[in-house]
Structures are given as C-alpha cells and as structure tokens.
C-alpha cells in the first residue's frame, strides 16, 4: 500500500535528483489535489533554499557599519536606569550575595552584578527590554565577560521587567564549538530556555554545582516510631467511628459510638502495636517494604 506521504516523498526525492542533474523534472500528475498542493509548497521551499549556507550568520550591524559614515548612528538601546537595576538587585538578593560589577564597568563591559552562590561566581547582565535575550549581541556580551574574567562560571542575562525573564549562558554557549559528527563550527548561541530569574539561577546551579548532600534519601530518614504510628492510626479510626455515631439515628448506636474517645484509642493502639511487634507481622512488614523498594 502506498501512503499519500510516500507519494509526495518520492516526488521530493525525485525533485532533488532533478536539481542535481540526474533526471528530468518529476511530474505531479499522479498526485491528488491535496498532495499536489503540498508537493508544490515543499518544492518551492527547496528551490528557495537552494544555495544558502546554513552554517553562516551575518556579522552584527555594529561591525558592518563600523568605519562608515553610519557608525554610531544606529539607534542604541536605552540605558538601563537605576530603578531597573535596583529591581534586579533586590530580586537577586533574595537568593544570594550580590554586589555591583565594578570591574566590568571599568573595562567597559556590560556586566552589572556579581553573584556569589555556593562558592561559585556568576555575573549578571541586565539587558534592555527591546533586546532579545537570545540575540547574538546579548550572547556576545556574555562571551566578553567570560574572556575578561575567567573565574566567571556563568552569566545570567536578565530583562528588568515584572516577569524578570532571564537566560543562563555557560562558557561553552558563548564560544564557537565544533559539532560532532558533522565537524562544522557552530557559532555561539544561547541554548538554555528563557525562565524567570529564580528558576534560571536554580537550574543553572543544579547544573554547575549539584548539591549531593540532600538528606531526603531513604537512608537518612529518621527511624519510625511504631507506637506513635499505631496511636495515630488508632486515633483516626476512633474519630471516624465517633463521627459516625454522632450522625446515627438509633439512640443506642448514637450513645455507644458517639462516646468513643481516648480509652478506645489507647486500646486500639495497643492492639495495633501488638500486631506490629508480632514476629510474623514484622516479617510481613519487612517483605512489604522490600517489595516497594524493588518496585
């Protein structure tokens, strides 16, 4: 059986052969109207893309206009005002020690804050809201910081908006890299998702300095107190019975069940505890826990 996609795929493959000079242009007559429309759309995309260099990207506008009469006339991003910087600083201050990045300012680089988290030094660049966080020039500003301050283990680009959108750049994002298996050189680009500032910071720290001292593992849990567990279970059961008794319409039941309280709880807890302490019950519990662990 031939699926519609197969027929269009065959045409696409034949069309590429035609472009390579290996055959005549493939006909579309045997396709249905929908298939023909799809094939034409895809062929138009092939024709249009032919000859492009997918590994290239244009230099920045600044570098294209450098040394020309238009140098400096490109509309610049509005400077980040102090209020916006304070906003970012107070947000960052909730998570880590933060100081103004004086070194970057002195070198004319776009660093605004230095963040010290768990012994790691991160730099923060507040980016104008009109600039995409993933824009080449935003990534280039991170690259300049990595170059000037090799002790920097990450750069956070932040929009000073209410959402405090941000993206984390690591040193490998900011550098050209050789991709395997193609071996082509890929230009620097932001690879992480744009997230609220706290999430970007948390995820990045988990990446560069995972906290392995988490005590939430099964080995570090405190020992269970069987008596306490038994009493809690008994109390819940007795309270449920007493509540049923309060709603009962039969007077005897209402009086008997409704009066359940501490005495019954203590008795039931002792009974449950006795069952737990019974060697056979203990084996059953151990087996149950092992089965759960395996699952």
């Amino acid at each position, binding site marked *: 059986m031939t699926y519609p*996609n197969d027929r*269009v*795929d065959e045409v*696409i*493959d034949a069309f*590429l052969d035609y*472009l*390579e000079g290996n055959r005549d242009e493939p006909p579309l007559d045997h396709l249905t109207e929908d298939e023909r429309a799809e094939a034409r*759309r*895809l062929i*138009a*995309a*092939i024709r*249009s*893309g*032919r*000859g*492009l*260099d*997918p*590994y*290239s*990207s*244009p*230099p920045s*506008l600044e570098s*294209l*206009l450098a040394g*020309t*009469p*238009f140098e400096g*006339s*490109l*509309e610049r991003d509005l400077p980040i005002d102090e209020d916006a910087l304070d906003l970012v600083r107070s947000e960052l201050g909730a998570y880590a020690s933060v100081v103004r990045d004086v070194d970057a300012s002195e070198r004319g680089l776009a660093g605004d804050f230095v963040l010290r988290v768990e012994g790691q030094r991160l730099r923060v660049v507040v980016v104008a809201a*009109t600039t995409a966080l993933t824009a080449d020039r935003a990534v280039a500003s991170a690259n300049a910081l990595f170059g000037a301050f090799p002790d920097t283990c990450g750069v956070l680009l932040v929009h000073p908006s209410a959402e405090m959108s941000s993206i984390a750049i690591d040193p490998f994002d900011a550098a050209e890299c050789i*991709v*395997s*298996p*193609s*071996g*082509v*050189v*890929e230009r620097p*680009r932001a690879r992480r998702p744009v997230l609220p500032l706290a999430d970007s910071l948390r995820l990045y720290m988990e990446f560069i300095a995972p906290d392995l001292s988490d005590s939430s593992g099964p080995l570090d849990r405190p020992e269970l107190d069987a008596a306490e567990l038994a009493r809690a279970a008994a109390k819940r059961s007795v309270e449920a019975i007493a509540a049923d008794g309060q709603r009962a319409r039969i007077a005897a039941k209402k009086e008997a069940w409704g009066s359940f309280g501490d005495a019954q709880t203590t008795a039931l807890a002792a009974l449950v505890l006795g069952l737990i302490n019974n060697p056979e019950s203990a084996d059953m519990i151990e087996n149950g826990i092992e089965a759960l662990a395996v699952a």
Partner: protein
Amino acid sequence: MKEHPLLHDRARLDQMTKVMRRKIEKTLRVKENVTGRYERVIAGGASCDDVLQDALLGLLRFPGSKLKGTWEGLAVRIAQFKAINALETATRGRQTKESDGQGDEIDEVRLGALGDDEIVSLAEAGADEYDEYVALARDDLMIQLARDLLDERDRRVFYGRQYLGVPKAELARELGLTGPGVADIYARALRRLEAAARNHPAYKLLSAESNEGGPHDLPE
C-alpha cells in the same frame, strides 16, 4: 547626514540584514559542495560579508523619498546587484580555472557559477521582490528552527540536502545510513520545518503583509 528611518528600527534592519545575506549567498552559490568550514570567497579576496556591508550601505544611502516599493524589496534588489557586481568586477578578464578536485579550503566563486535563473530574475526585478524577501526570511527561519528542532544527524541530512546539494549517497556513507533512510529523514525534516516556519508568528506577519503588497512605509 540626514538619519535614515531604518536606523531607528533596529529589529527590522536586523532582519533585513539577515535576508540580504541570504540573497547574497544564493547569488554567489557555487556548484561544488560547501561545508561550514569554508567561507565563500570571491576571486580577489572579497567575502560574502564584504558584499553584505556594501549592500547595507547602499540601502542606507538610498533616499526614502525615491522609494517606490518597500525597503524590504529594495534590500533584496540591492543585495543581488551588489553580489553580481562583485562577481563581475572580480572576474573581469580572468580565465576560468577548473578546480583541481583536491578540496581547497577556500571556494572561489566565479561568474560562471551564477545560474541563468539569477540573471533572468535580476532583469525582471521589480514586481515580486517583497515576496522574495518573505521567502528568504522563511528560509532563514527554517535554518534557525532546524538548529532548535532537529538532532545533529537529522540536521546534517537536512542542511546537506536542502541547502548544500550534498548527494544522498555521500550523506548515507558519512552517517552510516542507507539512501532511502537519508531520503526519509530529509522528507520528514522538510515537512516539519516548512510547517513550523509557515505557522511562526514572524513569518505569518510578513506573509500577511506580502498579500497587501508589503508593509506600508511612510515617505521619509
């Protein structure tokens, strides 16, 4: 010098620069396979970026009062003229030198590499430049989407087949696939990226403006 209106719209000028670069690449395309390690260099030492800079300056020097169509359409036309002009200047009086087949690190582009279709479209330039701009913007978007949506192997197949003219057998050998496997990966990637680009908000906006004859620019 009076400030050009495009200098106040950085996002638009950014996109126009990308599209101009794509147009120059298409015009300067070479018949041989080109990989990302090689920069396309015109005989005489000029590169795509040199031509792009020339084209961008040409665009910014063009007086808005004389603009009849759209800046986008003009950008495509200027990029094409500058690329052809660079080729003609570089190859005037030169003998065509056949490649030695040893895989030179630099692909010199010669006028002979210019396809007939480009020369014809230059002569006909006038009516459909904005549509061409939209198509090139979509191509640029597809290249970006391929970086984000495809894994390394599928991206290599897509780039190779779609843009670089790498034969199917060569890709199959390089990636340890069969010929039909390469064709299948390419067709799936093409469908996915073409649909993703077509439904992308940036392309929808351009496409809608294309139906109205392009964005409505006010004179300078």
